């Protein structure tokens, strides 16, 4: 793995710094498909839920490669030839039903749509209880979705018939409608991985909510009720959900962020932290982390005097700058652009 300093000199210049590692790790679909030749044998390890005492919970199989082999083909080969009792779900085999998601080498994939790797560890999805082997219990997700009431309610009479509705008005909701409820994102989400630490609904339920909450025909009252119990501002914006989504839904930028915008408008108390940041930037040009934390946490921010002392002695915080609310050279521009000439943000 490590490159010696002597061989480094012989390595060609990496032209695109943002993609270093992509070629050597076969990180493109074409690369991954073209790595095999007929006769190759795949080393597959599958996580089993019930094993005889003393044997490995990862059961190893040698699976002969077939042309254009998918993870699902490997699982089917194992079920037919080596382990008839292996439990896994699949139905359509063509990226529609969303039942065959598993983790392959630590990454959430649809078994029916993922090329095999020479060495594969296949595990059930995370963040949902395992029923058996690769089959998980989706009840937790389904209950959350139901509690968010992802449907449209209308109290106002229709504006016209046929009702005017543009692509632009539906651009985010229509992205959410691509969801096949495969739970890849739910398994990849680090905040969901922390269990009940926060009230974050998780990416998959929020995408389901986005289908109707981002539809301009839905009643704001209905959307407000749903958003109130979404915990949406606990999203850490890590884009893990976007990375694994087999339907390529831009979950953070086109679902979660527009839903946050709705929440800011319909349930402003949910977004006070975001408003606080905007106020700090609008008045001082840049973020002063101390002022932001004071605004967001209030007196709560003083409860850890040892940390405050630590931060003070290392010069990490500057109370004088914060108390005097010293402006930066960027303050005028920020105020102009964020306050829209009204003097208020």
């Amino acid at each position, binding site marked *: *793995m*490590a490159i010696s*300093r002597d061989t*480094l*000199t012989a390595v060609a210049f*990496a032209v*695109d*710094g943002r993609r*270093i*590692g*992509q070629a050597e*790790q076969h*990180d*493109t*679909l074409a690369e*991954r498909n073209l790595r095999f030749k007929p006769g190759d044998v795949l080393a597959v390890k599958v996580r089993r839920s019930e094993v005889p005492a003393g044997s490995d919970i990862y059961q190893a199989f040698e699976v002969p490669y077939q042309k254009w082999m998918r993870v699902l083909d490997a699982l089917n080969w194992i079920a037919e030839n080596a382990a008839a009792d292996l439990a896994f779900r699949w139905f359509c085999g063509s990226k529609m039903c969303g039942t065959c998601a598993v983790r392959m080498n630590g990454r959430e994939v649809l078994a029916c749509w993922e090329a095999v790797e020479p060495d594969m560890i296949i595990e059930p999805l995370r963040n949902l209880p395992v029923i058996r082997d690769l089959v998980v219990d989706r009840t937790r997700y389904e209950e959350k979705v139901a509690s968010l009431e992802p449907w449209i309610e209308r109290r106002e009479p229709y504006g016209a018939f046929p009702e005017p509705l543009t692509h632009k008005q539906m651009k985010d909701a229509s992205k959410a409608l691509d969801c096949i409820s495969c739970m890849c994102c739910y398994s990849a989400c*680090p*905040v969901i991985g*922390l269990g009940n*630490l*926060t009230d974050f609904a998780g990416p998959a339920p929020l995408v389901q909510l986005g289908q109707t909450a981002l539809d301009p025909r839905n009643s704001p009252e209905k959307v407000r009720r749903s958003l109130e119990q979404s915990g949406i*501002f*606990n999203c*850490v*914006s890590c*884009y893990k959900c*976007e*990375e694994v989504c087999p339907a390529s839904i*831009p979950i953070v*930028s086109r679902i979660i*962020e527009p839903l*946050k*915008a709705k929440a*800011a408008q319909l349930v402003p108390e949910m977004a006070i*932290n*975001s408003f606080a*940041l*905007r106020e700090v*930037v609008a008045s001082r*040009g*840049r*973020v002063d*982390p*101390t002022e932001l934390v004071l605004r*967001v946490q209030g007196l709560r921010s003083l409860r850890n005097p*040892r*940390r405050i002392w*630590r*931060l003070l002695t*290392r*010069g*990490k915080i*500057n109370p004088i700058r914060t108390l005097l609310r010293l402006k930066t*050279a*960027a303050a005028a*521009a*920020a105020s*102009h*652009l*964020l306050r829209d000439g009204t003097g208020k943000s």
Partner: protein
Amino acid sequence: MKFAYYPGCSARSTCAELNEATHLVANRLGLDLVQLDSATCTGARELRAIDPPGFYALNVRILALAERQGLPLMTICNTCTLNLLDAHAAFVSDPELAESVNAKLADEKLRYSGRTKISHFLWVLHEEIGEQQLLRQVVKPLNGLTVAAFYGCHITRPPGRYGFVDSRNNRALERLAEILGCRPIDYSGRTECCGFHTAAHDERVAIKLTGQHVLSAKAAGAATMVTPCPLCHTVLDSFQPEMEKDVDRKLDMPVLHLPQLVGLALGLTPEQLKIDRHMVPAGVLDGYAAAASNVPR
């Protein structure tokens, strides 16, 4: 090589040492950094959600300031980098948006035409300086220093921006560490999230997440971590006592800003690079600095 330089808010407040280290290292590498004095915040994660027009205005203005100077833009913060890349992409693909943003900038006689190249310091090292040049400038190779690269999210994801099927395949930091003479180690936290973006209202998430990453780096034998993002640094370094309480284990894991690691190999001292401003002392590096200084050039 000349760049318009955008350090972001963090490197001018809690992580001021990052700003200083970047200037020192840039100087050694022959990078001429032009400060954009009136550049605002890029809006963190908050503005892009609750105030998209404000978000685009702030970011496009920064791009326009660089374009006015005719310079590419260099960042040292992951989140700022992604904000600027996203705003640029939206600007060039939506003429209506472009027009409305430029109308707001007109009061300052600024106008963006979509020509600013945005690059993070990590990519500048690989693309503009290049491995050959870096190897020539390494005067104190950090021989065998085991380094855990912590990428952070916004320099590896979303996939649509950076093109990785699996962001864990990104090796830009490890490659750089090898050039500097270090031994990069593999561990589970490499491209995971530090939780910074919800830490202002609930730091428990950040503490729980990063505790596991630091533990995993430690178990894999890392002497130090390195990150290209000051936001990740803030969590990894400043919250470490809380993480230790949470995982019930002593961690003592120094965390370096990317330019600090580069600076050490270029012959700058830990004092010059202000490594002593970190919460977790980096005593392990003193040994390296001393040993390395005996190596003849």
